[in-house]
């Protein structure tokens, strides 16, 4: 069903996971006027078990306010590969193609 429960993509445990959700293209908020739909896949989840010394150090330095106002990023659950492009026809019968719009593979980076 559309816009409802995200499903986990099969075969993945906990942590940084590939999830998918069935949406209308209009839900993407990119301004396209069309009735077409898509499966949007994204990466989400914690990355604790992928942290390096660098991240531990960052965590401590931020905690001890050693880095002034800087707030550098710690490991993020991000796509390392994107889905194939998505093409659709809008209400004015013009075609559009979305590139790098949906995740295909996730990892902690």
């Amino acid at each position: 069903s559309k816009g409802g429960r995200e499903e986990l993509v099969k075969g993945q445990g906990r942590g940084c996971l590939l999830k998918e959700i069935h949406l209308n293209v209009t839900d993407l908020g990119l301004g396209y006027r069309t009735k077409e739909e898509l499966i949007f896949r994204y990466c989400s989840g914690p990355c604790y078990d992928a942290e390096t010394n660098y991240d531990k150090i960052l965590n401590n330095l931020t905690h001890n306010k050693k880095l002034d106002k800087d707030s550098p990023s710690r490991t993020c659950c991000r796509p390392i590969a994107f889905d194939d492009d998505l093409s659709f026809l809008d209400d004015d019968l013009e075609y559009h193609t979305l590139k790098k719009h949906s995740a295909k593979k996730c990892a902690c980076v």
Partner: protein
Amino acid sequence: LYFPQSTYSETIYVGQPAGAPVLQVHSMRERPSEEPYFCLSWRNIQKPPLYAAWFHLDPLTGVLYMNKTLEWTDFDSLSSSTLGYTRKLTLKVAAAPVSQKATCIHHSRVDVSLTFINATAPSCGQKMEKLCFPDGDISSHIKENRLPGALRQLRRFTHADICPNYTISYRVEAGTIEMPFAVNNATSELVVTAPVDREEKELYRLIIVCNVRTADMLHRLDTPLLINIYDEDDTAPYVNGTDSEDVLIEFSRSEGTVFGHVFVYDRDTTPSYPKDQTENKFVGTLMTNDSWIKDTFTILHGFREEKAMFGNVRGTVHEYKLSLSRNVLVDERRSVQLDYLVNDTTYPGTEGTVMLHFNITILPVPIQFSNITYIFVLSRKSSIYSQIGKVCVDNCLKFKGIDIVYQLEISDRNVSSDVLSCYTTVNVARSLEEMSGVLYVNDTKPFYRPECQELQYVLVAQEQQKQLQTKTHLLIIFDELSIKMAERPRSLTCAEKRQRGECETFKGMGAPTGRCHWRQGTDKGISENYSTCSPDLRTCPDGYCDVIESKNMSICPQDCTRVPIIGGHERGLMLGIKAGYGTCYCYSEKCFCEQDEMEEPICDDMC
């Protein structure tokens, strides 16, 4: 000899008796002495198909007969990948003059397509129509200007003995206009009674009446039969009105430019296929030995089919246009009469040619600034690449094939070296799509030096082929006394700014006022009127990457970018952003178009 039908088709059933006629092929005579001799011909003569033996053809009448009675097993013997209860059998009938009957199979052939139905013939009680006429639309064709003769058998042989005690006869319904067609009652063949002229009428819609007399009643049925009249090149080309065209060549002098046209009419048809077609082929010849004319001009020929103007019969309109095969020099002055002989090569008669005349006048184009001097006031706050204004020799916007280059020279060379160095401020570049020049800010350092007050240039325009040159004066006046170095704009791009506030305080490249300008879009969805920050709303964005903007991608990426565009957008014609959703802004590697209220990210650091 020629066949009056492109294909013959009939239906045969199980039980069709041996010796029964199936259909009759006709061959029309081209010369009185010709008599057709018919023969069956197969694609693979050594190994004709299984069903070849089921038929034989009367060589003189062209009537195809059954050689055997068709059985249920005959249907099954025809292997085919289809299921269905019908099989299509293709025969080929050739026709040669009797004198060449030995080589009959090598003469022109016509397809005979028989639909063999896996059922017995319908009985006498069924529709009368099936006794009279074959299924589907029926049509024939004859060539114009040819001999009379039989062109079609109207009887439906395969249904002849379904109702043995019915008598069937045909006639052509007398129409409003006289039709040179009749039925030979003895043979039930349709006959053309006199030569016909396609240029008078190319399609005859006969009504064939079939009278079926049963024991107690007379049934009258009819069906339309279309007779297409084939064309031959029997009419000469002619000109309607003028055979000459006056051509003036002035500002447009570039190779490929087309001038004027003359029409030649021909009541015959002209097939556009095959390419090197043989019918109604027109060939043209430039009637001159003057090499200058031959090297400079070429005549373009195209044709189209028309009906209305030829009395609702297809004819051909040939169009001849004069075209330049090279650029004409800017100072060329010449009057030429160019004659072009058009020859209808396939017209047998003598008057198959028409002479066309192009009276050509070539005027020289003066390269001059007639009584014009340019004065521009320039703000010291202008940033680099700001467009100041446009310069143009007389009629420059009309030039095609005349290449003008603009340059700036310093009027008074004896000024001090300090003042001399002020003159790096302005430069000129030739526009990309017309022969005007665009003045733009080339160096902003002189803006901060009080000694730079006004600049007196000599604007030089030089034509590139004959090096013709003209000059005029250009005065640039700085509007303020001087500005502090602190106000100096840095060479950055306005397009990076995503909101009005930061945009209008930002000093980006290409801004005549020194500040960027905000364009607020009002439309919903993806629109050409997207919000964006621009150095100069007169030229950016305008969907066109002009000569100054193309000097540096950061001046107006909205018109010139090739980088990926993220978010709802429509790319321009090869470059730039034609339409965008909400606000479009650009960095060096990417542009973005997104809704304004989404500006502030939820949280910078989501991780």
